[in-house]
């Protein structure tokens, strides 16, 4: 099969890959780069468990082809730590009890990271609106919203 050459920078590492034309970014991250933090839960862009940040924008990697993001700078949940320190969102999710089964957690954190990177101290309403792109089955979202608010305060 004809493959496509793609350059992507993931978590500050450059990768040159030969990917199949129909290979999703999620598959590339999970299977080729062993970054399994992003999860496959719906395979149709409905739940956000596979969210990663591509060029500053939260993207559902299950419905994006790797060939589409040639040249992109990508951050996954594994790349959030800086100098060995947890990202404020990671800390806040732990401290506020926003994590239960954990399957949606990576996607939630990455969606929230993109929000906090473009907007300092978002209101509760803005947080609720933003994370309504992602499904969590365990928490009722209350503690997730509190965690994002807390991280927003720390980062402002």
């Amino acid at each position, binding site marked *: 099969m004809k493959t496509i050459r793609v350059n992507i920078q993931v978590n500050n590492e450059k990768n040159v890959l030969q990917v199949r034309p129909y290979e999703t970014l999620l598959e590339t991250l*999970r299977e080729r780069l*062993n*970054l*399994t*933090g*992003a*999860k*496959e*839960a*719906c*395979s*149709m862009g*409905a*739940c956000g*468990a596979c969210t990663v940040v591509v060029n500053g924008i939260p993207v559902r990697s299950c419905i994006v082809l790797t060939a589409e993001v040639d040249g992109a700078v990508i951050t*996954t*949940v*594994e790349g*959030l*730590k800086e100098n060995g320190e*947890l990202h404020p*969102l*990671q800390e806040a*999710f*732990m*401290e*506020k*009890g926003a*994590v*239960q*089964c*954990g*399957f*949606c*957690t*990576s996607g939630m*954190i990455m969606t929230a990271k993109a929000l906090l990177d473009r907007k300092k101290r978002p209101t509760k309403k803005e947080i*609720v*609106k933003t*994370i*309504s792109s*992602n*499904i*969590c*089955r*365990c*928490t*009722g*979202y*209350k*503690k*997730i*919203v509190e965690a994002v608010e807390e991280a927003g305060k720390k980062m402002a």
Partner: protein
Amino acid sequence: MKDNFNIVGKRVVRSDSLDKVTGAARYTADIKLPNILVGKVLRSPYPHARIVSIDLKRALKVPGVKAAISGFDAYGIKWGVFRYTQDHAMLPTDKVRYIGEDVAAVAAVDEETALEALSYIKVDYEPLPAVFDPIESMKEGAPQIHAEHKNNINIHIHIDVGEVDKAMGKAFLVREDTFKAAGEAYAMMEPYAVVASYANGYLDLWMPNAGPHVRAKALSNLLKLPLNKVRIRHINSGGAFGGRSEVAPGDLVASLLSIKAGRPVKLVLSREENATSSRQVHDIMATIKTGMKKDGTIVAKDYRVIYNGGAYSSTGPIATSIPFYVYEECYRFPNVRYNGYRVFTNKGIRGMYGCHGRAFLAGNEAQMDLMAKELGIDPVDIRLKNGLKPGEVTATKSKITSCGLKDTIKAASERTNFKKRWARKSGLKGIGMGCIAIMCGFPMGFRSGSSCYVKINDDGQATLVTGLVDNGQGNESMVIQVASEVLGIPMKDINLVCADTEVTNLDPGAYSQAAAFVGANAVRVACENARKKIVSIAAQKLRVKAADIGLKDGLAYSMKEPDKKMPISWVVREAFFRGEPVAATGSYFPNIDFEREWVSRPWGQMAGTFSFGTSIAEVSIDPETGKIAMPRFTTAHDCGRAINPMAVEGQMDGSVQQAGVAAITEGNLWDKGHLLNPDLLEYKVPLACDMPDIDTIIISSLDPEGPFGAKEGGLTVRMNAYSAVACAVTNATGELFEELPLTPDKVLTMLERKKGVKG
């Protein structure tokens, strides 16, 4: 009971959360093993059809295919939770009974090859007439789904206490209503996945499960392998909610493929397969007849409840019983008759669900409100009057010990100013209350208890070994917290080995609300036994009395003279010197009547204790669209004592979503045997923007048997949140609901009916 704890009752960070926020936590689909193959399943396109033949030959010739199997490669053994429900071959050879049933499977080097090979499997079917509605299914002449079950009645639970007809005849007020509810989807975020690896006569398995030991036992039976050759390994689980309690067809499929190929096999279900072919939730129709005295005392209940069970028994006897029991554990019924029928249909297999029974429970509560109103009694007083109190015995002879029901009713109603707002409602706004009790564990024979082994290592850190399992609710962190309290060793210095059948002992699992009351109790006992050894040596070394020794922050110290202290690691090293390392076991076995049986003997002590809860929903209905808005939800829960209040609140919040808001949005939709909403776009799991402001109240009744007084945490809200919503809608409209979920179309029908009555 002692109340000044070091760590129990504190809002601690869960031990599993660091791995989960960094992406390091491993789930089944994340597992990579050398030479691992991809498994794929061929599923039935028919709701009911005879299997004439299955031909795997062409599939096996596809390059890259390493194994192909069907039921003819299995041992013809049928699975059932009980001896009398063994009807599920997992891979059928006689006929298929629902669309999506597992028929054959392949293992190949990659997904494309596996999918190509599936297309070459030839199955000859002879389609049979099918039936989807349980009422139709029970009629004479309906297609028979299992030869041994006439009229497709799978389970009949019959309970008859007191003299129902006589009491009903004497009652001041009698009312009968029928309520329906669509089955929900578990919709756990992790689609089902299993990795099977067979090597050197041992089969290792990873899958999301709520009870590794029962899973291993089932697979050892199905595969005719000795139990010690089947090893379920620890792995994180992306949610269960009752849907991962039982051995799954995929477990058998992956195991057979791995045994045949001699290589590990990973089978990951798609979201749609998870909906159609792992378990589903029962559709329920409940007819409820209630007799009350003039003062609101319930004198009789007469129930007929029909459960659409789908194609196989699954946890049928339990599922057909639980809605009744959680209700009789909450209220006093001097005379009660319950006829529960679980009926086979040509739909997917239905099992227990954390929110199971919403038509029955919400129906009971909403009907009670209307009857009470007729008698001039409000929802608070009718519940206080009929609610069970500590020391009372339920209709089927379970003694209630600790019971904070009254306190939950009072706390939630005071917080919301319920009485006034219920009486002075305006327009289409309403407020409603739902109550429930939950058994903390139920009879599971010798698997009802749990054991723990603890060793204190020479660095003063501890290792716990227990069969307990965590599906996301925080059980792992809970037992580490309990051990930390008893041993005085920080949580971060305690390692947990759990949910691995090779090294752990039996445990009831995480599907009968037993983890806190039973599992954590075993951990407490084991750690107390180890603590005695530490204290004894420390007392000698510090030259104080044993009763004066405290353990905290990894130190043993004199409580009277705190300057006298030594690290626990020194105590442990001394113990090694003496040839008596600090290690201990501990078990907890709850007080349950083991003569009790779901069908043949439905009475006796159900569980060691019961938890209680009251939820209050506030709704406002748009008269134009029929859309329900829910601005606020208040819920009070007697969980005995919250080991970690933050975790209990999280369980309560999630239950408001999964039972409360779901009462408006969630339900499976069908066209005959086709599930119309198997994905997460069409199936409406509530989003953050759908959620009310949630107010949680924890009530501590301090159970005398529970670890530090703890009972089950959170499930009561899963079984009363929909009742609160239904009652709030009744308060707003003056009408009872007919069917859940209360989508706008159904609400508009209710409003039309109301207009009709007035006009």
